[in-house]
C-alpha cells in the first residue's frame, strides 16, 4: 500500500511536470485528486486495512495529498503568471474621470454646518437685500449711532411703481444690502420663537473698494442660541468647540471685549494660529493668534425686537467671515479670486 502510494505520487508529479497549460492542469487535477481521481480511489481503500496499519498509511496518504495539492497550486500560479507575462508599468497614474468642484466657501460652509447640525443647530438662509430696520434698528443700531461707521453700507434706490406703496414711511431709502448676517437673528426669533438654535451662512456686502485684502462681497456665518439658562461660559464653550473643529483639538480660544451694539457683553474671539501653533508666523503677523470673529450675549433689546421675552430668555450670538476662514485654510492670498469665476482657481478645491 505504502509503495503504491509513493509510486502514484511520483507518477502524478511526473505528469504534472509535463503540463503546459491551464486546462491540462485542471484535467490532471481532476483525474488524480478529484472526487473519482486515482489518489482518492486509493485513499478509500485505507479503510480496509487493520487498525495499526491504517494509522501509519493514513498519515502518509494525507501528507501526500497535501503535498500534491500544494504542487498543483504552485503549478497553477506559474501557468497564470505565464499567461500575463506582458510588462505592466505599475507607476502609471490613474485614468482621469470627470469631476466637478465645490466653491471653497461652500466647502467651509458644509464643514461648519455639519458641526453645528451635530450640536442641534438648524441651518437657515435669509434675504440679502434687507431693510434698515432688520440690518440696524432691530439690532440696537439706531440711526446716527456711531456704530454705523463700522459698516459701509450699499443702499438701494427704490424703483418701480410696485414699491411706492410700501415705501410710504417717508424714509429716504431704507433698503440696503445686508452688511452682516445678523439681521437673521431677529427674523429667526420672530419666525420660530424660543428656544432657538440656528446658524445662518450667507453673502454680505460692504461698500469698500476692492483689493487683494478687501472685497465688497463676502460670506459670513451667524450663530444664535436662545434658551432659559444660557450663559457667557456657554458661549465660550461653543466657540472653543468651533475653533477645535476648524484647527484641531489643541487649539486655544482667546476672547477680548469688543463693542457690537446687538450683544452685551460683546467679545472678539481669536484662535491659536494653526500654521505655527501659536509660535508666531507671517500669517498671524507674529502674534500667534488668528482673529476669527465677533460674539456676545444677545442684547435684551434684540431679544425684544425678536418678540422674545428678555426676562425669561437669554442667549448668545456669534459671527465670523467664511471667506476669511477659507483664505486662511487654503492659504489664498487674494480675496478677489473667490468671485472671479476663474476655473484655474476653482478647480483647486
Amino acid at each position, binding site marked *: 500500500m505504502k509503495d503504491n502510494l509513493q509510486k502514484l505520487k511520483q507518477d502524478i508529479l511526473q505528469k504534472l511536470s509535463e503540463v503546459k497549460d491551464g486546462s491540462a492542469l485542471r484535467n490532471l487535477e481532476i483525474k488524480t485528486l478529484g472526487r473519482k481521481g486515482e489518489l482518492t480511489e486509493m485513499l478509500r481503500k485505507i479503510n480496509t486495512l487493520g487498525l495499526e496499519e491504517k494509522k501509519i498509511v493514513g498519515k502518509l496518504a494525507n501528507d501526500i495529498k497535501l503535498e500534491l495539492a500544494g504542487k498543483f497550486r504552485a503549478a497553477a500560479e506559474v501557468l497564470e503568471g505565464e499567461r500575463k507575462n506582458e510588462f505592466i508599468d505599475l507607476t502609471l497614474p490613474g485614468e482621469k474621470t470627470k*469631476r*466637478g*468642484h*465645490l*466653491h471653497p466657501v461652500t466647502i467651509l460652509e458644509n464643514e461648519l454646518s455639519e458641526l453645528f447640525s451635530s450640536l*442641534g443647530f*438648524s441651518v437657515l*438662509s435669509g434675504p*440679502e*437685500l434687507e*431693510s434698515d*430696520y*432688520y440690518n440696524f434698528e432691530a439690532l440696537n443700531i439706531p440711526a*446716527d449711532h*456711531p*456704530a454705523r*461707521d*463700522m459698516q459701509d453700507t*450699499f443702499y*438701494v*434706490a427704490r424703483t*418701480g411703481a410696485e*414699491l411706492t406703496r*410700501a*415705501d410710504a414711511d417717508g424714509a429716504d*431709502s431704507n*433698503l440696503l*444690502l445686508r452688511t452682516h448676517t445678523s439681521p437673521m437673528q431677529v427674523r429667526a426669533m420672530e419666525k420660530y420663537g424660543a428656544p*432657538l*438654535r*440656528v446658524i445662518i451662512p450667507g*453673502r454680505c456686502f460692504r*461698500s469698500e*473698494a476692492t483689493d487683494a485684502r478687501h472685497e*465688497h*462681497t463676502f460670506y459670513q456665518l451667524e450663530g444664535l442660541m436662545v*434658551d432659559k439658562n*444660557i*450663559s*457667557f*461660559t*456657554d458661549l*465660550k464653550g461653543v466657540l472653543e*468647540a468651533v475653533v477645535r473643529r476648524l484647527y484641531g483639538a489643541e487649539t486655544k480660544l*482667546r*476672547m477680548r*471685549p*469688543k*463693542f457690537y451694539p446687538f450683544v*452685551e*457683553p460683546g467679545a472678539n474671539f481669536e484662535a491659536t494660529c494653526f500654521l505655527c501653533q501659536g509660535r508666531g508666523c507671517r500669517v498671524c503677523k507674529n502674534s500667534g493668534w488668528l482673529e476669527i470673529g465677533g460674539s456676545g*450675549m444677545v442684547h*435684551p433689546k434684540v431679544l425684544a*425686537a425678536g418678540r422674545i421675552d428678555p426676562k425669561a430668555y*437669554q442667549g448668545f450670538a456669534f459671527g465670523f467671515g467664511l471667506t476669511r476662514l477659507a483664505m486662511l485654510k487654503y492659504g489664498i492670498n487674494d480675496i478677489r479670486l473667490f468671485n*472671479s*469665476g*476663474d*476655473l484655474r482657481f*476653482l478647480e483647486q478645491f
Partner: protein
Amino acid sequence: MLLSLDWLKEFVKLPNSLAPQDLAARLTYHTVEVEKIINQGDKYRSVVVGKIQKIDKHPNADRLQVAQVSIGKEVLQIVCGAPNIEAGQLVPVALPGAILPASPAGGPNGAEIKEAEVRGVKSSGMLCAPDELGLGDDHSGILILKSNAKVGEPLAKHLGLHEVILEVDNKSLSNRPDLWGHEGIARELAAIFNVKFTPFVPKKPVGLKNAAMKIEVKVEAPELCPRYMAVAMTGVKVAPSPDWLKRRLSAVGMRPINNIVDITNYVMLELGQPLHAFDQKMIQEIVVRRARTGETIETLDGEKRKLTADTLVIADKHKPVAIAGVMGGASSEIGDETADIIFEAANFNYRSIRQTSTRLGLRTESSVRFEKGLDPNLAERALARAVELAVKLCPEARLASGITDLRTAASKPKQIILDLNWLERFLGAGLKPTKVEEILLNLGFTVKARENALAVTVPSWRATRDIESEVDLAEEVARIHGYDNIQGSLPQITIAPPVLDTGVSMEKTIKNNLSGAAALTEVHNYSFVGEEQLKKIFIDSSGHLRLLNPLASQHGLLRQSLVPGLLENIKTNQPRYDDIGIFEIGSVFLAAEGELARSNTGGKLPYQEKRLAIALAAGGRRDLLREVKGILENVLQLFSMAAEWRGSEINLGWTDPHGSAELWVLGKLLGTVNIMSAKAAKNCGIKKSAAIGEINLTLCATLAANQPPPAFAEYEKFPPVIRDLSFVVNEKISYSDIRREIAGFDPLIRSVELFDVYQGGKLGEKNRSLAFRIVYQADRTLVSAEADELQQRLVKRLEEKFGAKVRDF
C-alpha cells in the same frame, strides 16, 4: 487715538516693572484694542545733533549754501537752502537712511534721506526745519537747538522725546464717550490693575461778579445744547506754547499752534471734552441756535460751507461764528493780536452733531467726541482746567467775566439693581460678590449692597448712552475680571427638534450632485450687474433695482438673473478650457413686492428668489441644450420630480430665437433652458457655443416639499418584450407629442424611451428621424407575436397622425 504713557501715569500709579507691551495687552484684553506701540525715539532714528563748522556759498546756485557739519565722529558736507544758518549753530541733522515723520507743511514726508548731489555738490544728509520733524508748522528756517545740545547725540534724546505712545483703535471706542481722553483710559487701567486712580479735581474758578466784560449767551435750541458754559479772560498773550506742551501735543499727533488753541486741545486730549476759544473782540453776543436757511460760514480750514436748519451753530448778533461741536469759524479765530478770549465748554446733542458732521463730510476731533454722547458735567471740569492752564501759560491772564452756565435740567443719577443670582446665571463665571463690587467701585460706580443684589449708581460719564441696564454692568464685571479668566462650558439644555429650512438642505443636495455626478464646477459671481453688460446681451436694465452708492458703474444694478455672470465666466475661461461646465446658486432681486417683512411696522421687502443656473460651453458639436436638460432632470429626480419641456415664446434677449425651452414641473413654470444666440456671443466676445439653464430654486423647494418619496416598484414577474422603433417625421412635429401618443397607445406599453435623434443625410429637407425603445409588458408571459401586432398598429397610427415613415435598418 494716540495715548501717551507718561500722560496716563499722571492719573494712575502703574507698576514700574510693567513693560509697554504688557500694558497694551492688558488694555486690549480688558477695554479697548491697542493697535500699535510707538516708541517715540524711533520717530527720529538717524536724526542727530550737529554743529555747523563752516558755511560756503554753493558754486552753482545762489540760494543754496554748503555747510560743513560736525556730528562728533565725523564732519559731513550738507547742502542747505535755509537762510538762517550760521557757523557755530547746533542743528538737527537727518543722516542718510533717516525717515522723517510726515509733516503738514510739505517737505520730504516719510521719504528716506539719501546721499545726493545737489547741483553738482555732494550732500550727505539734511538739516531740518521744525515742520520737517513734525514739531509745528514753521518752515521758515532750520531748527536752531539750544546750546546745551550735545554734538552727535540723538535728537530724540536731546528733545526729551522718549515717550511711549499707544495707538488705540477708534472704532473700539465708539460706545465709550468717557475714553476719549487720557483721564478716562487711566481710570480703566486703575480698574484693570486694581491700583489707585487720581482724577483731575478742578479748583472752581471764581467768576467776577461785577466784571468789566459781560458774556451775553442765549441758547435758543436747548434740545440740541443741554449745557453751555463760557468764560472770558483778559491779559492773554498769544504766543507759541512752552516746549513741554508742544512736545506732549506732538507726541499724540496734535500739531501745536499757539498757546490758547493748544490749551483747548490739551484739555480735550486729557479729559475728552472739546473746547473752543473765541477772540472776544470778534464776538459780542453768543447765540446758540439752528442755522437759518441759506446761511454760510467759512470754517477754520478755509472752506465755505452751506448750513441748513438742522445745523446747530454758535452765532453772534448777525452770523454764525462756529458750527457747534464740529469746527470754529475763521472770523473769530484766535490770532497773534488777540488779548481777550472766551473759552466755551458746551455739551451738544450727539445725534445732531453726527448728522451735521456726516452731512458736511467733516469729521473733526471735536465731532467724533460729541457724537459719542459726552457727559454734561465734563464741561464744567474742562472749563476749569482750561482757565488753570491759561493762567499757568500767561501769568498776566485773569478772568474777566462771570461764568456763564446755561443748562437744561440735569438728569437724576441712574440706578440699576444688579441681581447677583441673575449675574451668576448670565455669566456663569463664579464671581464673588466682593469681586463684583470691587470692579464696579474701581470703575467709578457707587455701590450699595443689598440682599443678593447690588444697588449700583452709574457715574455721569457712563450714563449718557453707554450703561443702561444690568447686562451692561455684567459686561463691565466680566471684562475687567477678564474673559480669559472665565472657563468655557457647553450649554445644558433640553433638546428640541430642529426647525428645517427646506431651501437650505435642497441647495446642499443640489450642489453635491452637480459638483459630483454632473462634474460641474461651482462659481460665485457678484450680485451686481451693469447697464453696459446687460445691453450687450439685450437685457433691458430699466426694471432693475439700483444701488444709490455703487462703487463702479459696472456694479450699479442688482442682478435679476444669474446668466450675465455665467456668460462672463465663460469668456474668462475660454482661452484655457475647451469645455466649460459651471453652475451657480444665488439670489436675484426684483423690483416687485416680496413676502418678507420690511420692518415691525409693515411694508415688504422687494421680491428675492434663489436661482440655480447651469452653463455649458464647448467648441465642438455637442447638443448642449439637451445636456443641460439632462442635468436638470437628474436634479429634479433627486426630489422625486419629473421635468416637462415645452418650446418657449419668451424672449430673454440673449437667447437664440429658436433655442428656448421652458421647464414645467407639477404644473408650474420652473425655469428655462436656452441656447446663447450668435449675436449675444459676438457682443460678449464668446467664441464657443453655449447653453444655459436657469431655474427658480425657491419654487423648486416649495414643490419638492410636498412630493412623496419614490415608491418602490416590485420587479415584473414576467419577461417583457422589447422593440426598437425608428421613423422619419417632419422636424416640426415635437418629440413630446409623439411620445405622448406612443405612451398612451396601449396599456401594454410600459415604457417609451428616446434613444436617437438624427437629421440630415438622405432623410430629406425638414425631416428627422427619431428612435424609440418600447417595452411591452403584461402580467403574463407576452408572446412576441402579440407585441409585433401591437407595434404594427402603432406604426399605422403614427403614419396617420404624424405622417411618420418607418425606417428600415
